[in-house]
């Protein structure tokens, strides 16, 4: 559906996007994950035809949108990071305006406003002025304004910045729902857990480059990271430790007071057997914490810095 090849964008001497390439298939949710300044917003601004790349091509259904921006504009729903709405107008007026901007009118427009306001959960506040809305409601309306024309491709640029957890969860659910209804989505965020929850595939960006891409599991596997397990056990004894060490997947076992910690090597073996050993040999398990490597860890591993740096 979308193919990006060797895309470059400079602002003065700063390389905002430095030769990135990726593909997006129909029905996917592609996450662009990276810290502030990684080049995510610049990339999607080029896809949205807001700015022109210095080099490279962006093909939408085979058409070069750098040369023919009109070929994507009608099929694109763009949700900027900022609340791009008219605050002195009502929610309904905003939705009507954006709907008409994309050619909707009459009954079709009314129906779409009803459907979209249901999805984003603001049906009961449509008659209020937008400047009276909470931050979360504005964000939801901001998304809703891009959905009215039922776009094939939706670009969401950090849509959950600065909102409460409840609104955030509402937005994430709405994005999932929109995807299930058939839209393809590009979702940028520097919140790893959002990307993990939503995206079928993720491109990790840093300093204008895509440093890794794939599904979550592919990304984690690509760095050969191990799970870390921490057990808090009462009455730890030598038999328990010796038995645990016998498992092939246990590595680097450390005991510190009532804490047993080890790394898991590979995917074979189950933790149930370890729990049985503790129980049979007089130990009492208080807690078990499995630390799986996540995208945050992948990013840290690849760049040497945390996502929110």
């Amino acid at each position: 559906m979308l193919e990006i090849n060797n895309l470059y964008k400079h602002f003065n001497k700063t390389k905002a996007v430095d030769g990135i390439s990726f593909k997006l298939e129909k029905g996917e949710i592609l996450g662009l994950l990276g810290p502030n300044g990684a080049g995510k917003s610049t990339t999607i601004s080029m896809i949205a035809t807001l700015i022109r790349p210095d080099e490279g091509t962006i093909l939408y259904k085979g058409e070069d949108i750098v040369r023919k921006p009109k070929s994507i504009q009608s099929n694109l729903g763009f949700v900027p990071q900022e609340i791009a709405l008219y605050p002195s107008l009502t929610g309904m007026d905003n939705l009507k305006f954006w709907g008409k901007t994309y050619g909707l009118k009459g009954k079709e427009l009314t129906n779409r406003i009803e459907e979209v306001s249901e999805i984003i959960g603001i049906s009961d506040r449509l008659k209020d002025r937008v400047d009276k809305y909470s931050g979360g409601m504005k964000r939801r309306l901001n998304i809703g304004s891009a959905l009215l024309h039922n776009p094939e491709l939706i670009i969401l640029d950090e849509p959950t910045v600065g909102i409460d957890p409840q609104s955030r969860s509402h937005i994430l659910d709405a994005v999932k729902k929109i995807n299930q209804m058939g839209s393809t989505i590009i979702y940028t965020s520097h919140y790893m857990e959002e990307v993990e929850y939503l995206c079928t595939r993720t491109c990790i960006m840093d300093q204008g480059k895509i440093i890794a891409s794939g599904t979550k599991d592919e990304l984690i596997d690509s760095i050969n990271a191990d799970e870390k397990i921490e057990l808090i056990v009462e009455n730890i004894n030598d038999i328990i430790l010796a038995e645990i060490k016998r498992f092939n997947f246990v590595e680097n076992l450390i005991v510190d007071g009532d804490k047993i910690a080890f790394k898991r090597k590979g995917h074979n073996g189950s933790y149930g057997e370890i729990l049985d050993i503790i129980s049979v040999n007089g130990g009492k398990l208080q807690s078990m914490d499995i630390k799986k490597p996540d995208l945050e860890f992948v990013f840290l591993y690849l760049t040497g810095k945390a996502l929110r740096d």
Partner: protein
Amino acid sequence: MINQLLLRLKLLKDDKILIIVMTAMALGLTLVFSSAMSGNYKPEVMLIDHDNTTTSKEFVNELKLSRLFRYTETDEANAIKNIETGMSIAGLVIDQGFSDKLRTGDEVNLSVLRSKDSIELIQLQSDVRITAFKFMSKFKTADITVQVIRDKGFAVEEEELFEETYNLSSYYWKYRNPLNLNSQVLSAERDWAYNPMIHYLIGFTLFFSTFTIVFVGSDILKEKQQKTWQRKLVSPVSNTVIMSSLLIVTFIVGMLQVGIIVLIGNYFLDINWGMDIGLMLIVFAAFVYTFTAIGLLVAGLAKTIEQLGAIVPIILISSAMLGGTMWPLEIIQSKILLTLANLMPHKWAMQIISQTAAYGLNFNNYITSVLILVAMGTVYLIIGIMLSKRHVY
């Protein structure tokens, strides 16, 4: 397009108080400034006559008939005191030998005492020059008459003939106009004579209306800031439609403002604008169109509303000055300034209204000025559309 227009009209309500205040201010300031700069007000000029001859006294008396300045004879100390305290705008010193130089046709230099430069000093220079020229003409006429009669071989008392010819010249200057123009302004309902007040009224109406119009740029920058502009730019609606909707609504607001000033002036304040109201509104319409386009262009140059706020007054005041809204371009001698004036929309609007007021309607000149304004506006609009994607990221 209709959707974009409706949006702009809906958003207008946010600015309704500002628009009303700006219109009221424009109306008020136009009247205040124009009445202060014309009508019965005459700046005072001190006269110090060191020559003290019959001719210099006559010259002083002639100056006192001026319609532009109130000349008052005094001594040098009093003149300096009055100028320093701002009671008088300048002092004109008639040096010894003034009469002789006038009579012999030598270069005459008059000293002007002043505390600062102002437009009135340029007018004063012109006023004094015209009066001095009149005296030199009379002397020259008398001189040539004596010379011709002498060359023809007639025996005359030359001094006596000179005096007689000079006095006759003065008589005819005083009581006979060398040329009478009987002009009639078509469609004018009231008797009308061109006076500076009309110039200033038109000039200040144009000047103050530009402030509301050019701030159309702030609408764009506001939208860029809240990112609705960017959202529109990535929609299927073209830049031309987006910009045109802004242009149309701002044009309507500008025309309402100018129309209110013109019509209130005409029907309630009994101002005769010296031109058919319909024709004048067409000129104003072309002017408002041009300045709306300038507003759109300026929005592409500025990055923030604060920058716009800094740029706009500079553009508006300098273009109004160069375009001749604050003083008639006729008193400007610098070729550079006059050339620059051609680039200012004010010049073309002022010129056609003034010309029509003074000489009646010349259809060709009228159309030319209106077309120049429309062409200027269209060029600015095209550049504005081209710049509409600047500073969007």
